[in-house]
């Protein structure tokens, strides 16, 4: 094909959304009320992350149903099986972070989940069931592409006054996710996607960027406090 590869083309599209998402992330970490907002962020991230492995498991099952007649389903399914194991248990990390922050993990486990979070994960279920599981790669691309920077956990701990143990998920993902993104970009470039499937990945990614932006702006609107 001429022009940039698929992963580079997707990056160009996401670059258009990046200033908005960056502004929402900046608002999330605003100084006023940061400790309270960090706890709300942990609750929201648990609601989101508890869907990650089940989403990938459902997509992998759809791949198994589609293969061998579908040339994308085989390699996609193998990627998902590997990535499921990389992501498994991270919702439990967030529950431990909540407990360390003095919050109630049971409230997260039993919680409904905000509508914006349900919209993020729910759209993926729709596309997996009714279009093609390859759409999930757009969702994963946005989540992996906005991993915490090294040092973010320590800066947040210092500025919120919360114990270091409340930042395990943020700290460990700064190390984990850089390799994940490279693997995903390589997969996007190698898969024999149709133009329609490439669009599905991009729409899924942009929808995810939009949903995360909305989520962060909602968290940023939580009234300020002392830390």
């Amino acid at each position, binding site marked *: 094909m001429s022009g940039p590869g698929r992963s580079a083309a997707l990056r160009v599209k996401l670059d258009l959304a990046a200033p908005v998402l960056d502004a929402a992330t900046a608002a999330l*970490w605003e*100084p006023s009320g940061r400790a309270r907002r960090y706890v709300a962020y942990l609750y929201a*991230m648990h609601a989101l992350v508890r869907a990650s492995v089940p989403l990938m498991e459902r997509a992998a099952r759809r791949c198994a149903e589609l293969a061998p007649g579908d040339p994308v389903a085989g390699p996609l399914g193998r990627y998902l099986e590997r990535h499921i194991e990389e992501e498994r248990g991270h919702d439990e990390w967030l529950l431990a972070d909540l407990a360390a922050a003095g919050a109630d993990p049971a409230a997260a486990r039993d919680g409904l989940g905000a509508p914006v979070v349900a919209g993020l994960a729910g759209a993926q279920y729709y596309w997996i069931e009714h279009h093609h599981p390859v759409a999930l790669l757009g969702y994963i691309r946005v989540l992996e592409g906005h991993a915490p920077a090294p040092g973010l956990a320590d800066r947040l701990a210092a500025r919120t006054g919360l114990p270091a143990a409340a930042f395990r998920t943020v700290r460990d993902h700064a190390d984990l996710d850089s390799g994940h993104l490279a693997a995903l970009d390589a997969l996007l470039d190698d898969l024999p996607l149709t133009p329609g499937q490439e669009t599905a990945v991009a*729409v899924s990614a*942009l929808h995810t960027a939009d949903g995360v932006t909305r989520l962060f702006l909602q968290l940023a609107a939580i009234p300020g406090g002392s830390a």
Partner: protein
Amino acid sequence: MTDHQDALARLQAAGFDLTAFSEEQREVLSALTPHELGVLVEIKGRLDESAPEVQAHVDIAGGALF
């Protein structure tokens, strides 16, 4: 107006600044589908709704997703 010109025109009308994009990148953007364009225009609107001064007094930045 061709479809390609239309995609770039819609982006610019929504307020996106495309001057920093290379010719090859603009080619990618000129081929955006209606679904892609629709979501991007929605996203742009969210920045306009949110407080643009936010980033001026933030001492921490960076992604926060897993």
